[in-house]
């Protein structure tokens, strides 16, 4: 549960908080895409901008590192895999060129993740859902309101499921089930009771939703584009343009 509660929306009035959630999504897609091909000027500019925005939104560096710690392990693995080359035999070779290249790759990947964290830290879940309906409505073959409701259910149930899983693990420890060596038995003991509980709860949820006349059409929060959104989109386009400078 700790992983979830530490990572989430922090209220505030910073520039990032005031942007429309749809704008933030679009910026994330645009900058995230350009990032993978960006040169050092673009990456530097983007890091500086994100740093300033993150500071404005009250996000500290220690929190950022704490939230990306698993991802940082992966980055280290990628860095080593790229920096070390095996020249013909089993002797590893490390050159300055390959270290620089590996560093660039890791820098890009890290920035992409930081943007995701900034989005979650500055946007309410209800707004993310409303933006989702707006984005999905023109997509053919997708019931946007149903999809948004389902995403909403995931958000509400995730902490509950993690809580139940932790409770179950404790109950099993009390009965020494966790000391069984057979990995198959342990996978089964972890999964079957959890699924059984969750799916039996689903029947109650369905009855409760029906009793309250659930339908796809419910009131969503109003989203409006402001001048700030236009300015930030323009700024993002200018930063992106530096990626294509010679």
């Amino acid at each position, binding site marked *: 549960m700790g992983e979830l509660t530490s990572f989430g929306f922090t209220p505030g009035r910073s520039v990032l908080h005031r942007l429309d959630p749809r704008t933030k999504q679009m910026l994330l897609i645009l900058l995230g895409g350009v990032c993978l091909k960006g040169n050092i000027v673009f990456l530097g500019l983007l890091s500086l901008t994100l740093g300033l925005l993150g500071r404005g939104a009250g996000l500290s560096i220690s929190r950022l590192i704490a939230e990306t710690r698993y991802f940082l392990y992966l980055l280290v693995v990628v860095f080593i895999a790229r920096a070390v080359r095996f020249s013909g035999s089993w002797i590893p070779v490390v050159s300055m060129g390959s270290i620089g290249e590996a560093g660039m790759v890791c820098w890009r990947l890290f920035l992409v993740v930081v*943007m*995701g964290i900034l989005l979650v830290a500055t946007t309410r879940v209800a707004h993310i859902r409303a933006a989702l309906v707006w984005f999905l409505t023109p997509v053919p073959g997708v019931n946007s309101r149903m999809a948004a409701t389902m*995403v909403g259910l995931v958000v509400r149930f995730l902490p509950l*499921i*993690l809580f139940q899983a932790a409770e179950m693990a404790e109950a099993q420890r009390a009965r020494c089930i966790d000391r069984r060596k057979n990995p198959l038995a342990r996978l089964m003991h972890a999964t*079957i009771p959890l699924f059984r509980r969750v799916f039996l709860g*689903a*029947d109650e949820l369905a009855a409760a939703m029906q009793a309250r006349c659930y339908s796809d059409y419910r009131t969503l929060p109003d989203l409006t584009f402001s001048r700030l959104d236009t300015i930030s989109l323009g700024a993002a386009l200018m930063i992106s343009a530096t990626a294509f400078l010679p």
Partner: protein
Amino acid sequence: MESSALQLKRMIYASLMAALTAAGAYIAIPIGPVPIVLQNLFVMLAGLLLGGRWGLISIGVYLLAGAVGLPVFAGGTGGIGKFVGPTGGYLFGFGAAAYVVGIIAEKGRGRVVVDVLAMLAGTVAIYAFGVPWLKVVTGMSLSKAAAVGMLPFLIGDALKIAAAIPIARSLRPIIDGATDPVRVAG
């Protein structure tokens, strides 16, 4: 049961399966030196229990929740950035796997051999998306990408397939009682 109620129930099952998949990214069982993360076991189970169409919808909702920035992916991150990141291919592979597993399992009506084949096909689908993606994004060679992104997980995958069979057998009656995705044989 009237059709709107059935629709609602299926929707809730698919949402809960998506939430379980998200939870699977956090739950790890320590077996030997490498903890086994339950996430791709849950993806396979989405296909086995809900069938192809609703399995795909369920994983689609999970990916959508991640795409809009909710912290549902491994390591507590989210955001569209994850899709273009090094592990993005696996995420698309999850969707493909749930669909493939579901479609094949529906044909088998709970026969063990068919379920195993379905999950083998699902595993292939995950790596068919994941490994080339890892190669492109990180610029490693294909053999290096496979060594980092596939080989270490194969033993765990075999274990998960073996565990999924009895798990599906014990859980199908609960779900089949309400809807009719994949019937149990006999």
